[in-house]
């Protein structure tokens, strides 16, 4: 004979729940703003910062209390956390939107066909005209050379770390990559300055800047490529091995294509990161108002250093037109990074088979 197990029964919970009306957030919001404005009038707050802050606090408080009273704790928590998360999102995007917007507004007046096709040769801060052409060429060459060197080395290092690296040597490489990640750009510049320029007795030139940029790019490329290559499922390597394919061909034909979009993203991140690098370039490349398309000899301009120059930080005088040109150069720099980004993404998307 078995004894029935009895669990004490409580009243069955009701399935319907009271909700606040759809207009509740609006009502709470309007009330909070009205209350804050009233307080501003009574307490003679100047400006609107305190009032805005008070309104936000009041809004959370009002809606929270109202929600607890009607809907219960769980829904009230949901509402408050939702508001906080949304507020954080807005706060985080404010600097981004402001920087981009400000540069677009300030830089747009400077943009013109002349601005893109002329150098600053013979133009002083007090004169209008001139452009970014010399700096655009310099940045393309310096960053291009740096990318051409750093991307292959970085991706091959990542392949080594994931596919072959075992033991102390691989751990050592990974450790130094992490250390390199923390090297300030001016220190990288100083290092190249000491060994390349002072050591060999050379004058500043474009490719010297590239060497510093390589040092700065490598840890970013290696780290991101390593993560992406690690994400390629082990099953795919096994499938390729089992077809009797040599390991290096598996890596070239299976692992890298599968990780391609991640590798592209990581590489772009590294390029964007160094395209705006200024300090090592001031040290290693200098600045030239003339067009110098030879990265192997002579001072060369670049967009970041041109911004610095046009603001009068080099000569001590920005003049009447320098600032506008600096904003223009900043806008061109951002557009350049954006264009490289879009082009590479398009390229990555166009390769590989369709799922539709």
């Amino acid at each position: 004979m078995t004894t029935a197990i009895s669990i004490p029964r409580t009243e069955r919970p009701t399935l319907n729940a009271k909700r606040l009306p759809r207009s509740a957030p609006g009502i709470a919001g309007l009330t909070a703003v009205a209350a804050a404005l009233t307080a501003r009038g009574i307490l003679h707050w100047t400006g609107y910062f305190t009032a805005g802050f008070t309104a936000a606090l009041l809004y959370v408080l009002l809606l929270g209390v109202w929600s607890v009273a009607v809907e219960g704790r769980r829904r009230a928590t949901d509402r408050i956390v939702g508001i906080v998360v949304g507020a954080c999102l807005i706060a985080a995007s404010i600097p981004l939107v402001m920087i981009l917007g400000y540069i677009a507004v300030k830089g747009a007046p400077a943009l013109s066909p002349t601005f893109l096709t002329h150098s600053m040769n013979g133009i002083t801060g007090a004169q209008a005209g001139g452009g970014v052409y010399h700096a655009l060429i310099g940045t393309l060459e310096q960053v291009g050379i740096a990318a051409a060197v750093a991307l292959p080395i970085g991706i091959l290092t990542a392949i080594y770390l994931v596919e072959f690296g075992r033991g102390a040597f691989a751990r050592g490489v990974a450790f130094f990559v992490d250390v390199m990640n923390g090297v300030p750009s001016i220190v990288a510049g100083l290092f190249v300055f000491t060994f390349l320029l002072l050591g060999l007795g050379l004058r500043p030139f474009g490719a010297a800047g590239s060497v510093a940029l390589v040092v700065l790019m490598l840890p970013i490329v290696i780290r991101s490529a390593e993560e992406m290559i690690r994400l390629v499922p082990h099953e795919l390597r096994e499938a390729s091995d089992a077809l009797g394919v040599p390991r290096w061909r598996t890596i070239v034909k299976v692992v890298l294509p599968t990780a391609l979009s991640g590798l592209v993203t990581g590489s772009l991140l590294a390029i964007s990161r160094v395209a705006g690098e200024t300090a090592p370039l001031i040290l290693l490349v200098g600045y030239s108002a003339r067009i110098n398309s030879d990265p192997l000899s002579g001072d060369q301009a670049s967009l970041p250093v041109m911004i610095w120059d046009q603001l009068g930080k080099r000569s001590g005088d920005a003049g009447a037109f320098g600032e506008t040109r600096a904003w223009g150069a900043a806008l061109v720099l951002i557009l350049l990074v954006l264009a490289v980004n879009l082009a590479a993404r398009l390229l990555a998307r166009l390769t590989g088979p369709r799922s539709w």
Partner: protein
Amino acid sequence: MPPRIDVHNLDAYYGDFRAVEGVTISVEPGEVTALIGPSGCGKSTFLRTINRMHEVTPGGRVQGSVRLDGQDLYGRDIDPTAVRRTVGMVFQRPNPFPTMSIYDNVIAGDKIAGIKRRKAVFDDIVESSLRAANLWQEVAHRLHKTGASLSGGQQQRLCIARAIAVQPAVLLMDEPCSALDPISTLAVESLITQLKSDYTIVIVTHNMQQAARVSDRTAFFTVADQGMPGRLVEYGPTAEIFTAATHQATRDYVGGRFG
């Protein structure tokens, strides 16, 4: 005529751990041999020693001999990648290459290895391999779409087509149906039956009905305890193993009276 496989006194290790011990077995040509046994008994590990995939695992090494028509696959002058082209493998989870089309997946063995052939030859290999894998009719109109768009059962048949496209002599299958629904399983099983005249097939399975349905001979592996090596207990014609096994452990396992 597909080859016979003679394994003699084979031990397989992961680092210091001996996972499989003292396996001696003769796999007959042109037959389906099923490896059955509880989880962790070393049957998958043993399977992977036949095409030298075991040593791909870090720490994996093998002692003993595996002879393919008399030639020791672990001899000093043997190229493991050549072994794997001769002894193909299908895995538990379908693993088509996601960046490649169905067409390219089938000829992946040649394509990845950098072997160039005329387009007509590749077309021919693709069609005959897909037909052999019973997949041609379902994918003929979308050969250049990605293999990831197929269902699980279709993906597994694509992987079988990929394995036979390099014209191996032996096919190893590591629980090829465990991720498939019954209908796809049926498709793969009937495929195995069709393929066995051209290939020596070794299949690991947890499904004893499947072993009984598709195999001519069955090998029962077991492991005494956690941390002990797996051993081959009994090997014989499938009907005998399932109805008149010599060992009590085998009778218990195939009769469902085993842990």
